[in-house]
């Protein structure tokens, strides 16, 4: 869906490239997360994708079409791409409602479709439309503004979204909720999303695909699992940090290690020590500790399909960390 081919960007007046020979591909319906330290070129990549700036060299394709095609009006291109900018950038002279309705207005939607859409969107990002629709940006908290920014980007239901640290200004608890909510929505929306974050945990949670950047260069890309289990170098290892194993347990579904032949002992039933196949292995571990058992039963919907033992988890950890 989105392809970057050997893209370079050197800003005028600077001799160090902000982005150097970056190539990758984002598949349709996927979330691709860009992680890396400040100044590594994440925002620059997003801005090149929607042509706010032009690459110095290299090509960018969206749906197989070169974005730099003469026939393509960049303003029209951008109306098809939702953009959540890092600094939020709400229009201070317009109400929340008018801010969210910006792109639908530009696309000349009929008036009567816009209002309900705005309400729907505010609801979606967890804001009460009755409360905030008529407020002005300065009356909102940073986190609320950010959510309005996300709603604005989603307004015209663009197939592609560029989200630059969209949950950066909210506290960890709300951030977790927003991430969950967003992933739930994404299951239905199936948008192609480029998502920037500083936070490796957010990257692992949100990403189908992760691109790790450093000083303008692409260091490693792959699924979260690939990145966690096979960090390319010490930079990626440091980025992942210390709780790598736990992150891996969060990423592995119980279904992947369930012991299907095993009988479920009576004690497990008595303690109601069950999890679902789609729960992460992390959940199995938590349940064991809570229920003081070294075995959990695994269910698929209502059916009991097997067990996971403490030893199975240990084996998994050994396998995952052994690879590194």
């Amino acid at each position, binding site marked *: 869906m989105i392809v970057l081919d050997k893209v370079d960007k050197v800003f005028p007046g600077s001799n160090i490239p902000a982005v150097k020979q970056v190539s990758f591909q984002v598949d349709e319906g996927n979330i691709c997360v860009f992680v890396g330290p400040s100044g590594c070129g994440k925002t620059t990549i997003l801005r090149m994708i929607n042509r706010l700036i032009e690459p110095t060299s290299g090509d960018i394709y969206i749906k197989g079409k070169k974005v730099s095609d003469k026939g393509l009006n960049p*303003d029209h291109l951008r109306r098809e791409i939702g953009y959540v900018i890092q600094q939020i950038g709400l229009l201070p002279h317009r109400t929340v409602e008018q801010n969210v309705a910006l792109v639908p207005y530009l696309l000349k939607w009929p008036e009567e479709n816009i209002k309900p859409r705005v309400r729907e969107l505010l609801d979606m990002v967890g804001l009460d439309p009755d409360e905030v629709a008529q407020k*002005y940006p300065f009356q909102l908290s940073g986190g609320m503004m950010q959510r309005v920014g996300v709603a604005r980007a989603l307004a015209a239901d663009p197939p592609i979204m560029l989200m630059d640290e969209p949950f950066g200004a909210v506290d960890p608890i709300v951030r977790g909720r927003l991430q969950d909510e967003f992933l739930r929505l994404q299951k239905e929306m199936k948008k192609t999303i480029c998502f920037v974050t500083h936070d490796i945990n957010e990257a692992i949670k949100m990403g189908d695909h992760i691109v790790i950047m450093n000083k303008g260069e692409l260091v490693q890309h792959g699924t979260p699992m690939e990145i966690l289990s096979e960090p390319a170098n010490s930079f990626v290892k440091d980025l992942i940090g210390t709780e790598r194993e736990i992150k891996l347990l969060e990423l592995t579904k119980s279904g992947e290690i369930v012991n299907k032949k095993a009988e479920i002992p009576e004690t497990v039933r008595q303690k109601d020590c069950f999890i679902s196949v789609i729960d992460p292995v992390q959940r199995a571990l938590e349940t064991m500790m809570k229920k003081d058992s070294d075995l959990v039963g695994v269910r698929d919907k209502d059916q009991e399909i097997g067990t996971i033992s403490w030893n199975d988890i240990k084996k998994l950890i050994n396998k995952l960390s052994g690879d590194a």
Partner: protein
Amino acid sequence: MIFASSILQWAGNIYEKYFGFVDFIIRRSERVVEYTANHFSLVITVMFFSLILWISVGLLISRYEKLANTAFGIGNILFVIPSISLFGIFITIPMLGLGRTSAALALILYAMMPMVRNVYRGIKSVEWPIIEAGRGMGMSPKQILFQIQIPIAWPIIFAGIRVTTVMITGIATVATFIGERNLGRFIHHGIARESADMIIAGAVLVSVIAILLDYILGKVEYKITSPGLRKEQEQS
């Protein structure tokens, strides 16, 4: 009784001495109306052309940074020239001579500095993430100018219009020396005839008009400012 009448007499003296101009204004109300009308028609003409000209120049220099310094340089020089000189210089230009055209041209030049500066400041006050957001949402440069930059700059631009209008109303009085028949004329002739009432009448009239104008435009300024841009006022 004697006491009361002496107070009355004292009050009468005070009135005659300091408020004789009220009598004057009433007595010469026709003139007052004529001069006031002339005064305003000049101010309105000047503001009409100033708005078109100086707002355009302000927008231009906020886009072409290099022109800004030149424009401010010219504006500063114009501002140092005493109003009476500017009027005087225009009347010695043969095509113009005494009269309204000279007066209007001089005043339009005077309007340059406050107008252009405020338009420039206003446009520059729009922070770049807001522009970036506009571009990112797919607004064309024209839409960004008319839907983002000008609306956000508008309170500052209007403040410039207000200051300029009041200033032009004041300086227009000086145009009486190049033949304008406006409120400055009471002061001008008052001095020539050493008539205190006439001078004070003129001074009070123009001052009251200027202060009123400033007050009214201040109210308008508040009205037209988007509540979203009114933070400071609301919070204090």
